[in-house]
């Protein structure tokens, strides 16, 4: 409790500082999009569409929630996001307990989010991505609580808020599978994992328990095949929950705001192509080939590696025990292979990190090393970007090279994480703290 109060105090102080900073300095503390939300909220209050604010590319819900920005105080949204941050820490704590992690480690994971300078800065700058991170965590929590229908609904809402969690659908679906490859209880660690039995598979206990038993060999491939490819009850609930929530929200807002809503909050994110400098490895390639016809093989080359990795990770980690790590790895992949990367995208995977920390077999020293490399790679990109944007120097080539370096740093990090990942039952007993 005292941590919650302290975490909240830090955030409130920073929000106050932000008010002062924005009045004093040229480069504002507040996120660019926060202004966009506020303007959209103003439009909503005046009875107009939030999308009449150019570059508003979010769900109308964000504008609704932030209307007090206009009639209470401009910092309302930041305080709301800070409170959601605390809620996020609480959910991480509960998620860890559900996964049978010792309460000490669960506590540490929650603190990692509460005191993480990045999450503090993100929410106090007024970045709405805290909201989608919260929903992703809530989805996991529902799944572990054995409520696939709810998980589906939250997941649908989450996709509505931010498109990227749509790639989580496959691992979420697979994690409920009755096939022995995906089910919680594999032959090898059956005895150890009683936690999973009572959580995820509660709705269809008999199937899962039969799955890996001795009769498996005789029942043959056909049953296995059926278990993997024929959806079971939980899976149907998940899919129905997700699609009904998503369709309902989409239909409602389409009815209210028309094609404009559909384009800005969905289609735009699919076809987004920004030639202006950003962290993406594809930035210079896109800028130099701008205006020209993009050849089909270029499209394929941009799309295929990402697809392969997402599929491979889904199949490999699409199990209930591995779910948080699967989502983390997938998020790193979609962010790094995205044609446009802005620093807010990093929140997406940072928010999944705390839930994975107890399963990462890394020493504090290794963890610190990886964190430093990751941050240095980012700063190294920021330097030429600053010279271009604020000094008007031609540093395009350097920005591109730093983009490549940053990509490589992230891929190496992902590889180290995969190597260090040990599902909860196999981690050695001694507690290890890990960041990044």
């Amino acid at each position, binding site marked *: 409790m005292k941590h919650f109060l302290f975490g909240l105090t830090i955030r409130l102080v920073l929000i106050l500082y932000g008010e002062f900073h924005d*009045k004093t300095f040229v480069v504002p503390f507040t996120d660019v999009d926060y202004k966009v939300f506020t303007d959209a909220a103003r439009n909503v209050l005046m009875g107009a569409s939030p999308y009449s604010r*150019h*570059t508003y590319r979010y769900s109308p819900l964000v504008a609704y929630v932030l209307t007090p920005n206009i009639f209470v105080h401009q910092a309302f949204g930041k305080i709301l996001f800070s409170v959601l941050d605390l809620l996020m820490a609480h959910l991480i704590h509960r998620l860890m307990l559900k996964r049978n992690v010792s309460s000490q480690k669960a506590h540490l994971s929650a603190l990692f989010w509460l005191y993480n300078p990045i999450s503090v800065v993100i929410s106090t700058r007024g970045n709405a991505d805290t909201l989608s991170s919260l929903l992703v965590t809530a989805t996991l929590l529902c799944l572990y609580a054995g409520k696939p229908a709810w998980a589906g609904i939250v997941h649908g809402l989450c996709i509505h808020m931010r498109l990227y969690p749509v790639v989580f659908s496959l691992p979420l679906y697979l994690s409920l599978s009755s096939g022995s490859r995906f089910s919680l209880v594999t032959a090898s660690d059956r005895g150890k994992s009683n936690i999973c039995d009572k959580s995820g598979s509660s709705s269809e206990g008999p199937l899962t328990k039969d799955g890996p038993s001795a009769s498996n060999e005789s029942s043959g491939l056909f049953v296995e095949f059926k278990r993997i490819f024929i959806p079971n009850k939980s899976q149907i609930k998940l899919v129905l929950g997700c699609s009904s929530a998503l369709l309902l929200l989409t239909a409602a807002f389409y009815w209210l705001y028309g094609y404009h809503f559909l384009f800005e909050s969905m289609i735009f994110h699919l076809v987004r192509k920004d030639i202006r400098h950003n962290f993406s490895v594809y930035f210079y390639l896109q800028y*130099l080939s701008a205006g020209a016809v993009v050849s089909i093989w270029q499209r394929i080359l941009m799309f295929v590696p990402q697809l392969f990795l997402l599929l*491979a990770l889904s199949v490999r980690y699409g199990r209930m025990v591995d779910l948080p790590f699967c989502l983390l790895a997938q998020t790193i992949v979609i962010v790094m292979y995205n044609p446009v990367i802005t620093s807010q995208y990093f929140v997406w995977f940072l928010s999944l990190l705390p839930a994975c920390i107890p399963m990462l077999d890394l020493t504090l020293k290794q963890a610190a090393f990886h964190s430093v490399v990751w941050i240095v790679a980012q700063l190294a990109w920021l330097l030429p970007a*600053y010279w271009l944007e604020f000094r008007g120097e031609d540093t395009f080539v350097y920005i591109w090279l730093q983009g490549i370096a940053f990509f490589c740093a992230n891929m190496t990090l992902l590889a180290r994480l995969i190597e260090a990942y040990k599902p909860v039952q196999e981690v050695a007993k001694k507690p290890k703290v890990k960041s990044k």
Partner: protein
Amino acid sequence: MIMVTGSLANQRCSFYVLLLSIAFFIHNSGATKNSLNQQSSRCGLHATIVRQVEREGFHRDLGSLVELVAQNPLEWQNCTVALQETIPSGLYVNQDQLLDLERQGILTACPETFVDVEAAQWQSESFNVLVYSSLQTALNLLYAHIRMPIHLRYHAPTETGGYAGVYIPPPKLFIRCSNEITCGNKDSYFSAPCDGCTGSSCSWLPLQFNTNTPQQGLRVMVPVGNKSLLPVVNAVTFLVTGGGCLYILSILVSTWK
């Protein structure tokens, strides 16, 4: 990506700039319209605009110091000037930023069309912005110091890279007073919103002025990509992204239990 919304907060020593600019070399801005000239002299007004682009990079300020030397300054005390700026396709103003500045009482500037702040230069066209300012008085001098944030658009890459030039042409100057202006020629009046982006329309008296802006306009340089690098960029980028994919897949296989 870092984005900056330029702040006009510091109206730094406009008087100093004013003094400097009086000593500034000022030459005529081409296109002398006789009727306008006659009108200005009939009204006893001599206008100059000293222009400069401040700051570096993609986010700049377009500064205009408008000075009116009046034979009878009392007559012009309750007047507003308006600049009609032509923003070339290589630049844009951010409508939302301008609205914020208006709310803060720093600047009133209204684009005459919708401005796409994300489009590149080759996808854009030039457009007009009306900038309003009240006048301050110093003896027989009336002046207004206007600073409007402008942003550079990305330009198409060229075969050699380097820099491209964007030219900001001189503006048109108009004046409107709360009392009726009697010296002007009614035919030459320009109709525009009275004091904000929307609202009722008023008649504005066009004024001839001298300016330091060269004929082709103020030049701003913007870095552009080097198209000759495209094959190298293509090859290296896909080598790295493809390599990254294979690397991760190999790690997945090697840790498979």
